[in-house]
């Protein structure tokens, strides 16, 4: 998508990066990167390990300030907003978070309400309702009284997702949310995100490892390699064998997903023939 196109310039997306050079200390991960997140999309960022997906997500969520260029949220440079104001518009599930010792599930999820709270207003009816809704959506209501330390990896991840959901932000960024989940919970979580996207119109941006998950659930894919965007667009439009080869270096064929009709990546690999 070209932002310099006058027809599109009028409808600037809520969140985009423009000419951003991002990295850590002296190490540049991406230089002069321009990426837009289409409003109300379920955008998935894919790419091989260390291609700069998570770094891009960190920049989009102002955890990492670009060295040059800018990240814009709602027409304003994101770093110019007060921290709490950003947190009311944009939620982020980081790759690693720490549950304080001895915290219960409901208590942790309630921490997601922080950006909506004030010194005197620390537990409004809205806070309570948001926590209940988030727990129901992630199916952790039954666990609410349990200690987070005692949960399984999958349960814990759902609790963290519930915490960002409780934040009730129109934009939701998730860094590899499915990593520690078994396949059933991965699909459940992806379904949940798709649901939030369709029903609530929440814009969702997720970094995912599984290209087939991306194809099935994303409305918009951003494929990255070496810190640069190689292709972006709807899965049907951009996911081809050439692209997968280019982005992941994986020889494959693409067939139609028999259920959803979306592209399905089949690695060629070196399969011994059965006959």
């Amino acid at each position: 998508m070209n932002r310099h196109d006058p027809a599109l310039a009028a409808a600037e997306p809520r969140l985009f990066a423009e000419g951003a050079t991002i990295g850590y200390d002296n190490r540049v991960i991406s230089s002069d990167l321009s990426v837009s997140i289409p409003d109300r999309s379920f955008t998935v960022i894919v790419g091989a390990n260390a291609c700069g997906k998570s770094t891009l997500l960190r920049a989009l969520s102002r955890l990492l300030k670009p060295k040059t260029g800018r990240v814009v949220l709602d027409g304003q440079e994101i770093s110019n907003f007060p921290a709490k104001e950003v947190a009311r518009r944009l939620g982020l599930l980081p790759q690693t978070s720490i549950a304080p010792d001895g915290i219960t599930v409901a208590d942790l999820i309630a921490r997601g309400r922080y950006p909506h709270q004030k010194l005197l207003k620390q537990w409004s009816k809205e806070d309570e309702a948001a926590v209940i809704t988030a727990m129901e959506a992630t199916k952790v209501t039954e666990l609410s009284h349990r200690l987070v330390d005692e949960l399984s990896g999958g349960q814990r991840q759902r609790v963290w997702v519930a915490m960002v959901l409780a934040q009730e932000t129109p934009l939701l960024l998730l860094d590899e949310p499915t990593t520690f989940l078994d396949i059933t919970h991965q699909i459940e979580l992806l379904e949940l995100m798709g649901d939030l996207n369709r029903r609530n119109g929440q814009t969702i941006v997720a970094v995912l490892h599984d290209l087939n998950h991306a194809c099935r659930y994303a409305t918009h894919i951003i494929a990255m390699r070496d810190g640069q965007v190689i292709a972006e667009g709807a899965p049907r439009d951009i996911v081809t064998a050439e692209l997968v080869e280019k982005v992941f270096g994986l020889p494959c064929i693409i067939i139609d997903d028999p259920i959803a009709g979306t592209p399905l990546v089949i690695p060629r690999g070196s399969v011994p023939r059965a006959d």
Partner: protein
Amino acid sequence: MSVQDQPQGINFGRPIRAVRLFGEAVSHRVDLKTVTVCAILAVIAVVVALITISSGEYQVPLPDVVRALFGQAEGRIHMVVVEWRLPRTALALILGAALGIGGAIFQSLTRNPLGSPDIIGFDAGAYSGALVVIILLQGGYYAIAGGALVGGLITALMVYFLAYNRGVQGFRLIIVGIGVSAMLNSVNTWMLLRAKLEVAMAAAIWGAGSLNGLGLDRLGPATLVLAVLIPMALLMARPMAQLELGDDAARALGINAERSRLALLVIGVALTATVTATAGPIGFVALAAPQLARRLTGSPGVAMLPAAAMGALLLAAADYIAQRAFAPTQLPVGIVTVSLGGVYFVWLLLREARRQ
């Protein structure tokens, strides 16, 4: 006003009450267990303080103590209770609370029960500052207090920068702090060895941490400073709790992580330094109070208010022991806290070692 039991079915796993006042203008989630524990600790601390005031070579019955505190006693009782004994005992309470909060701040920031200001070198640094003033400059009480403040602050900065490596990580801070503390202790010993005998004795007594002989003139300044610092600390309690989620999560939730941490560090150092400047280094209260309180409340992370209540109780009780254990000889309270704290410290080390 509306008070609900378990708010609309959210089971927090502990008794929580939603309190909403003036429509929706003020709302809070009240943790009943924490409130109860704080209240009980505070009551016991005050009772211990009253007993301390009533006992001594000149016994004052408790009812007379209370009457004197409300300004309804005269003559000798008023003098003994209000002028002689109250300042010191009140100091034990407020300095103990300050140590508790200071300890809670550092333990929360380092995410480690060992991350307490006395372990990571601030006490040793304050002592160095005080020794420079006592031995080299022959300064009086306020000069010594100033020296201790400066020494503590410089040490804090030193530990912070030595531990700095793209942000400050808890465990690194503790290790660096223990190292700096050991170095400063050797410098302190060297300064004591070079000093004249009487000067060295006075310096050593300061270094033990003592409330002996502290009067109204000491209570005033300490109270004023802490009356500012403690509310500032409590205002930072919520960002502190959010920081325990990790920097990324805290920042994603609208916390300015670097700024909040710096503010907490400054307040924590200032609280500890104020105590040290007033009474000398009093070890182990900051280390033990937050963790002991946490065991009682069962609350997540490290909380300031329970730590304050526990700190006040610990120091008040230690001061009672210091005054009465070998009466008429009065021990420095720091000796008592270090002796009792040592036991706790060994237990803590063993537990941490087993955890690894």
